[in-house]
């Protein structure tokens, strides 16, 4: 019931939005919306019988009757940003409230020759990277696409200042569904750092169905970090889809640090020779938190390289999922693709489901995957104790070191240190002295 109710709410919101569109109802963008809604209605909401949703049942989540919201439900002031991370970071800042850009809260470039940030127009090439047919929540987002932004990094530009997308679900009027949408066009031989954070602000529950599309042109380079560190009202189902062209390099780090429910779909397509993809993930969960990470690395061209490392620490009755697919298409000879996934179970009641999937059609490739799950190595704990480090502290240090290995890959100092600090804080562990 909850599932049908959710789909009808999207249909209802689409009808209202269609009236707003007015004269542009046959434009590119509205056609994209209509097609997305058709995909959504045809496929419906996924149940655990759906292979990609096997470990995560959406019915209890969608029973919260989230109502789609486009833009703030109440007037927004800068107080909505209080306590949110990276407020002091020198960054281009894109603040979205219920999916709609808030110019007065953002820090946008006005006359930069290297970067432009603009709201979608009816002709924006949005929806070409993330698939509405395969990803039901991309269909949800795309059906109600409104108010998101296009970030364009000009060719040959090195943008040093990070771009921080701060997406807020404002839930003061009731359980709210928000659909933030970003398209990042990284033109040839340019480079940038993107940070994406999601927050729920208000008394009721929030669900953000976010979509980020990143197009990396030839020779470009992107470092993307997505942080889920929301409060107990926070729920998130987000998709990030990245196309990587010749000799371009994309690195994505996904940190699930807090919030009740998180599902991330990360899709990296290596479309042309010599493309590189790096996928890192860390989940630190407790209580009844859920973090479900699905990744796809699609090697469609020869001489490409991908590396993937996901780690999870699960305490309480938390549930972690890692499903990592690697496709190596027939043309993708000389591919090197490595995946590893390691989990630490910190309580007897925590659960992790790990599923590596490699599908290889090319015959001259190097691919590997490895997955482990278990408890902390007690011999290592004793080793630390024998050097005068207390048992609890030894456990904390080892647990922290396990998780922090992922953060090590983040090159931006402030972002890496922030994540390390939050991992230590959540584990109640001290970091090793530096």
């Amino acid at each position, binding site marked *: 019931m909850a599932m049908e109710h959710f789909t009808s709410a999207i249909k209802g919101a689409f009808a209202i939005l269609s009236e707003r569109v007015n004269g542009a109802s046959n434009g590119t963008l509205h056609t994209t919306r209509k097609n997305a809604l058709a995909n959504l209605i045809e496929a419906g909401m996924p149940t655990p019988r759906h292979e990609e949703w096997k470990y995560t049942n959406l019915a209890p989540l969608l029973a919260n009757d989230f109502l789609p919201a486009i833009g703030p439900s109440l007037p927004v002031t800068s107080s909505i940003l209080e306590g949110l991370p990276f407020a002091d970071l020198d960054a281009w800042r894109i603040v979205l409230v219920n999916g709609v850009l808030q110019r007065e809260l953002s820090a946008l470039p006005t006359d930069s020759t290297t970067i432009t940030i603009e709201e979608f127009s009816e002709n924006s090439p949005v929806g070409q990277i993330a698939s509405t047919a395969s990803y039901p929540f991309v269909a949800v987002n795309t059906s109600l696409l409104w108010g998101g932004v296009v970030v364009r990094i000009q060719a040959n530009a090195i943008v040093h200042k990070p771009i921080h997308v701060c997406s807020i679900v404002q839930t003061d009027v009731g359980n709210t569904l928000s659909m933030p949408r970003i398209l990042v066009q990284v033109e040839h031989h340019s480079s940038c750092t993107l940070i994406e954070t999601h927050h729920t602000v208000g008394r009721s529950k929030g669900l953000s169905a976010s979509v980020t599309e990143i197009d990396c042109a030839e020779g470009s380079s992107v470092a993307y970090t997505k942080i889920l560190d929301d409060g107990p009202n926070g729920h998130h189902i987000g998709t990030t889809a990245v196309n990587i062209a010749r000799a371009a390099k994309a690195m994505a780090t996904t940190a699930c640090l807090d919030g009740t429910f998180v599902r991330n779909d990360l899709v990296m397509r290596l479309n042309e020779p010599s493309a590189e993809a790096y996928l890192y993930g860390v989940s630190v969960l407790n209580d009844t938190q859920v973090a479900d990470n699905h990744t796809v690395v699609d090697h469609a061209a020869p001489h490409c390289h991908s590396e993937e490392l996901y780690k999870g620490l699960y305490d309480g009755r938390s549930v972690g999922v890692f499903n990592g697919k690697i496709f190596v298409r027939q043309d993708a000879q000389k591919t090197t693709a490595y995946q590893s996934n390691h989990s630490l179970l910190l309580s007897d009641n925590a659960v992790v489901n790990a599923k590596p999937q490699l599908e290889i059609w090319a015959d001259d490739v190097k691919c590997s995957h490895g997955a482990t799950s278990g408890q902390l190595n007690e011999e290592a704990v*004793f080793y630390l104790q*024998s*050097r*005068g480090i207390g048992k609890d502290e030894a456990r904390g*240090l080892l647990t922290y070191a396990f998780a922090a290995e992922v953060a090590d890959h983040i090159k931006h100092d402030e972002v890496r240190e922030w994540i390390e600090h939050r991992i230590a804080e959540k584990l109640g562990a001290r970091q*090793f*002295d*530096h």
Partner: protein
Amino acid sequence: MTTTPLLQITDLHAGIEGREILKGISLTVRAGEVHAIMGPNGSGKSTMASVLAGREEYQVTSGSISFNGKDILEMSPEDRAREGVFMAFQYPVEIPGVSTANFVKTAVQEMRKHRGLPPLEPAAFLALMREKMKLVEMDQQFLSRSLNEGFSGGEKKRNEIFQMAMLDPALAVLDETDSGLDIDALRIVAEGVNTLRTKDNAVVVITHYQRLLNYIVPDVVHVIWNGRIVRSGGKELAFELEEKGYDWIKNESPAEV
């Protein structure tokens, strides 16, 4: 003149999973001394080291261990370490994600805190690490590498002695530190230990073979067999064992009761 022994083990009985391995060990070690514990495999040598260091899976059923006059059987492994007991592991553990430098720094600061000393300043700490690394001929690059990860057998053992040098224990127990070492590594490790000897500390060398004792010369050699010390003597006892083999001890010692 008699002083309180540094280590006094009295009629120690201990075992694992209900099986008694140590069947009445008594041993007195005074400051400034080097003791060697020798014996065939399975005689109880490593169990003794484990019980001293406080491994939880071993149960002490009777007897006592006092260190500097304090009963250490009631202490956690970390408290024993803070009191000045150091064990060089037979199999040092690999710990990915923790650099050797950060690990040693954390341990040293814990010790200093326990001894009521202020934390070492970063520059002083770095200088101390450099000095102690030279002692065991370790390259600086080991400091930034994950602890023991991918280290060779010899590098791991040298790292143990480096940690000993940094922590400056009153009693060092070297658990088969010579196993798996080539002659150069053996010499480096032994010279490191010798440099660290003072009149105020003591070393207990646990070994199967006599060769390490050419470098770390013991004051007393004990032979352990079937959970008991069956013979004690000077350093010449080690040579006698080397020559005659452990069967000599086994044949001369009372069989299991």
